[in-house]
């Protein structure tokens, strides 16, 4: 019994992390894999989605529940939530609606942040661009820490628990919500990769000059890729916040920019299946290390979590040197829906 519940807990925990990273990695794959934009500031939109949730979720819940209070939802966060949460717990539909509205807000806010990043993205060369976007992303943390009315400074805020209605199944439902969005982002990215829009993005990635000579407006397509990608990142931030029902301005580029990059490189750029595989391999590895942390802890004179970094660094270096195309290589797409057409032409 306890073994099973352990396994189930492990799996649910793993799936939540996997789902959030899948959304982010798919987004990176659209931006870098398809459109060739080396977004080293993924964290910008992810943290943006998370922080905007912290900033508006409680206010929004008050409005949706028709509650009035003189307390400030940020500075008097706990007292306000102690009134909001019990009410929300009994209203599953309002909770779901709140979640969906927050997702939309997160997507829009993420997209706006993506457009801000576009400034450097159309001007700079790859390596400089990466550093600039990285610096941009760091700034959102500085502001979130310094400007207290946003999400309460360094201590952060709690957000209404939109999954409370599911009681003891809360984490299952929350995980399911993450997986649904992850599935949508995956299916969408697959579709995009086969649409003329995705094809044009790839053409720009392959050769900017040739794409321009074929009439493609580089800025426009970069903007589209940034907006789509950043919207997904924003949603990932929202979901991660709702999953843990709290947010602090401690989003770190290591977890929210570097890891996604390494996972996508591991799986293979420009290929959604690769992104999926890379995410799976990494999250399983990560969770296993944490899971076995305690059994190893006595044997080693250091915290086992650091092995995570050592392994990750090693694996990435090995992949870069020995299999730069990743585990799954990008292949040209042969359109299935056009197959009938192709056959009839070939016969002629």
């Amino acid at each position, binding site marked *: 019994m306890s073994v099973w519940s352990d396994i189930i807990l492990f799996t649910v925990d793993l799936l939540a992390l996997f789902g959030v990273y899948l959304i982010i990695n798919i987004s990176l794959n659209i931006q870098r894999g398809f459109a060739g934009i080396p977004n080293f500031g993924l964290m910008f939109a992810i943290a943006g989605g998370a922080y905007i949730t912290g900033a508006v979720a409680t206010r929004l819940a008050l409005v949706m529940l028709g509650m009035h209070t003189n307390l400030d939802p940020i500075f008097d966060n706990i007292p306000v939530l102690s009134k909001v949460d019990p009410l929300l717990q009994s209203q599953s539909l309002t909770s779901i609606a709140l979640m969906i509205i927050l997702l939309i807000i997160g997507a829009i806010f993420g997209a706006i942040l993506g457009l801000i990043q576009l400034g450097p993205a159309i001007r700079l060369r790859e390596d400089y661009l990466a550093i600039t976007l990285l610096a941009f992303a760091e700034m959102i943390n500085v502001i979130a820490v310094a400007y207290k009315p946003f999400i309460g400074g360094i201590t952060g805020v709690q957000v209404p628990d939109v999954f409370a209605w599911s009681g003891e199944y809360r984490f299952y439902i929350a995980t399911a919500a993450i997986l649904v969005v992850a599935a949508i982002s995956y299916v969408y990215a697959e*579709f995009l990769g086969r649409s*003329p829009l995705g094809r044009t993005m790839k053409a720009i990635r*392959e050769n900017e000059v040739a794409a321009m*000579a074929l*009439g493609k407006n580089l800025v426009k397509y970069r903007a589209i890729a940034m907006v789509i990608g950043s919207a997904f990142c924003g949603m990932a931030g929202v979901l991660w916040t709702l999953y843990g029902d709290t947010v602090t301005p401690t989003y770190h580029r290591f977890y929210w920019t570097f890891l996604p990059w390494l996972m996508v490189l591991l799986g293979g750029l420009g290929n959604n299946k690769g992104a999926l595989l890379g995410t799976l391999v990494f999250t399983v590895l990560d969770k296993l290390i944490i899971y076995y942390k305690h059994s190893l802890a006595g044997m080693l004179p250091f915290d086992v979590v650091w092995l995570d970094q050592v392994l990750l660094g090693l694996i990435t270096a090995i992949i870069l040197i020995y299999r730069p195309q990743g585990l799954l290589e990008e292949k*040209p797409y042969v359109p299935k829906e056009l197959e009938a*057409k192709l056959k009839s032409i070939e016969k002629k």
Partner: protein
Amino acid sequence: MDSTIDYSQVILHTDKLTKRFGGLIAVNEVTLNVKRGSITLLIGPNGCGKTTFVNTITGYYKPDGGRVFFDGGDITGLPLNKTYEKGLVRTFQIPFPFLKLSVLENLLVAARNNPGEKFTRHLIKSSWIKVEEQLTEKAFNIMKMLGIEEDWDKEPESLDAGALKLIEIGRALISDAKMIALDEPIAGVNPKLAHNIFSHIVNLRKELDITFLIIEHRLDIALRYVDFVYAMYRGKIISQGTPEEIARDKEVREVYVGGE
């Protein structure tokens, strides 16, 4: 403007077009006309400014002086993608294939006004799949004509240099251009294929009413197929005329074969 020329017959007209790189004047006040429906050849030795000329009219470079008129409008200084929209499409001397796209996709991506490319419509497959099918058919016809239809699903990486040249030309053809500027379409191509390419160009001009401006090094092959020739040397037009006139031109021959 020159009063002896009928400008309604001219699709491309440059007026004292100039492009400098630092102290070097790569294109020096070049004035030339390309007649609608013609195949016009621009020749000259290496480094004489031919490629820079094409780069400047199509907007890869911004000119430092002079104007470019195309199809009745002023296109001076428009960027590459805008000159494409006006109907002026160019190929590159070194082929720039999209390496991770199949040959078919390389052609499809070059098509004009594809509704599936629009952010607002890409999710609605029914709005673009018809166009996509038509384009596929068109692409196949072009590939057949160029003799690369066998390779339609291959990555350009696996093909030889000649085939890459043909993809480059195929992309220009599918774009419904009014005029195509070909930058050394037969450089590094064996003579038989080179003649084939030129025969195709002649046919296309007849069938599709496309104007061609061709930059070439290999006069022997090119001269047989063209209507009018400009010869360029050190950034300037030094001679112009029919292929016969050019072949007889003393100055051209001296420059071209590397005399002093």
